[in-house]
């Protein structure tokens, strides 16, 4: 049994196809969806989305969004999702450094949650590049 995964962005439909299994970074931890999963709605945290199909896997860096699971269909709504080819390694490195510096600094006017989110995004991107 396979599940239908549809990744929808505001500007296009990124993926629409059948997969055996998918692992999604939910806001309370990664979770896997196989067929006959219970209806489920959750937020996504920055991380890596893995799609499994016939012994092949594809990994994508995902930043935010929502997942709805129902009737063997997985709907992923997100603003930003990138494959390996789409990621700019240098920019991700720079973003990681910047976020780390901000988190380390002792100034009070820093939005730590934002910096943390940026760090997570950069890490997700870099993980994809390294394979």
């Amino acid at each position, binding site marked *: 049994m396979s599940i239908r995964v549809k990744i*929808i962005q*505001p500007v296009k439909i990124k993926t629409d196809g059948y997969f055996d299994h998918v692992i999604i970074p939910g806001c309370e931890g990664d979770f896997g969806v196989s067929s006959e999963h219970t*209806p489920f*709605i959750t*937020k996504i945290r920055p991380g890596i989305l893995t799609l499994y199909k016939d012994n092949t896997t594809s990994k994508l860096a995902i930043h935010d969004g*929502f997942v709805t699971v*129902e*009737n063997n269909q997985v709907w992923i*709504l997100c*603003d930003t999702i990138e494959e390996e080819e789409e990621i700019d390694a240098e920019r991700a490195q720079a973003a990681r450094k910047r976020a780390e510096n901000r988190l380390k600094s002792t100034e009070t006017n820093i939005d730590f949650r934002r910096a943390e989110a940026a760090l997570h995004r950069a890490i997700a991107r870099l993980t994809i590049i390294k394979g």
Partner: protein
Amino acid sequence: MTGNIRYIKNRIESIKSTKQITNAMKMVAAAKLRRAQDRILKARPYADHINQMIKILKYKGKNSEHPLLCTSSESKEILIILTSDRGLCGSFNSNIIRQAMKYIHDKKDTDLICIGKKGADYLKKRTGRIIDTYKGIFNEMDFSVSKEIAAKILNFYLDKKYSAIKVIYNEFKSAIQQNIIIKDILPITIFTADNEISMLDYIYEPDQYTIIDELGKKYVNIELWRMLLESSAAEQGARMLAMDSATNNATELIKELTLYYNRARQARITKEIIEISSGAEAINK
């Protein structure tokens, strides 16, 4: 006489070059319209799905007391006015500005946000209630820009200073038809029939309230984006139409002037011949 002929000739030349420009603008508008339509289609699945999710959360989870979903007691409103950055698009901007002026005349307690240069320039002189303006975003349509604007709107709303945020814009019906509509963007109002809601029992993570929080933001993002796209498609449609009729008018004018030109030319020749022949007659006598 000769002066008159030359004058007509010059007019014909100038109208011809105007016609070339309007024709080119028509083509450009047509191409941009196609691109804008394409983008509207691409944004649709995302918007539909967000709406679907909000429906589920609003009607199944009894979340109607969430601030994004229910009206507050304040009476002040924000009206967002979507116009174009450039002119030469027929009555596109004037219609929407007229409607907006009527609206704020009826509801005195309305603050304005202008998106698009034309509306901003016009309303700046006539009302003192503009709290924010955005210009030049239609040139390079980018989702991140719309996201920024949406974030600001959300802040205005969540600060509890306003009871509602409405958008007045040109809805894209077809290439030749635009409809001006006023739509509520906040609080989120989605009307639905009971049988449309899926009966599944969902598990929510972390919890419904947090999800509505986030989903509401996304909803505002995508709704605003959709309206911007519609408005830009409608603008291009209006421009295409305006430029088409301008081109037709120019063709008509050229035809008419050519007729005058030929008539004047003929009259001149006839006059010359009469002069010559009457001169010859005078010698023969």
